[in-house]
């Protein structure tokens, strides 16, 4: 058990636990907070995978902006209340069953792959995953998607304002 493996296991457990916590928690605020923890853990993973820019983006965009937004809306709508009686009784058991099947399938695939995929090399190019690298790629190879994404964000902004303003006559 190397350090890496140990680190990975710990972080994985935290991630999974926080995910499950988000799933199970009756209180929406608690769910949001669990998710924030999950995102943070995944950001660490990103760091471990030589993707520093993405890691920071994850923390700042996802946890910082998106989850905050979530929390705002939760608090706005007063969604701490517990859910009522289930309308569809068979939904939950069926979903869990299917999830288990999916995991089994995934496990089967992964374990089958164990001997197939060659291990990764330790050496990686200098500056892999650095912001400079990301920026260079964005503006060179992926310029068009980048610009479109900016339009997308504009649309989202406008849309959000339109939607929430639409009630006034």
């Amino acid at each position, binding site marked *: 058990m190397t350090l890496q493996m140990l680190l990975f296991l710990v972080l994985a457990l935290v991630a999974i636990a926080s995910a499950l916590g988000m799933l199970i928690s009756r209180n929406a605020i608690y769910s949001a907070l669990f998710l924030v923890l999950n995102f943070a853990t995944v950001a660490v993973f990103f760091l471990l995978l030589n993707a520093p820019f993405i890691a920071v983006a994850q923390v700042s965009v996802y946890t910082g902006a998106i989850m905050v937004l979530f929390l705002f809306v939760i608090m706005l709508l007063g969604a701490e209340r517990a859910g009522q009686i289930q309308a569809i009784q068979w939904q939950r058991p069926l979903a869990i069953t299917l999830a288990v099947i999916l995991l089994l399938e995934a496990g089967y695939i992964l374990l089958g792959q164990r001997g197939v995929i060659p291990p990764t090399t*330790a050496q990686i190019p200098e500056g892999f995953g650095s912001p400079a690298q990301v920026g260079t790629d964005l503006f060179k190879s992926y310029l068009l998607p980048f610009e479109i*994404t900016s339009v997308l964000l504009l649309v*989202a902004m406008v849309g959000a304002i339109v939607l929430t303003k639409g009630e006034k006559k």
Partner: protein
Amino acid sequence: MLPVYYYLGLAIILFTIGALGVLIRRNAIVIFMSVELMLNAANLAFVAYARYWQSMNGQIFVFFIMTVAAAEVAIGLALIVTIFRTKASIDVDQISTLKG
């Protein structure tokens, strides 16, 4: 780095939990959050493979996914707020008038 399927396995587990969240929870916001979790799991898989193949494409893709997810969250929450105004509830089971 560890063999890539470790990260992949983790991603799958997170994805499944997110899917379960979408299917089981009735709170619209929690469902939304589960969707974010699923997207996040996909991000993890992308970054893992980007590291494996030593290609920046994976990370760029994650970048775009994040951007889109942000836009989507904005709109989605705006929608939820709008629905809440008419329905006074965010229980998705109550938005079921289009039944056959």
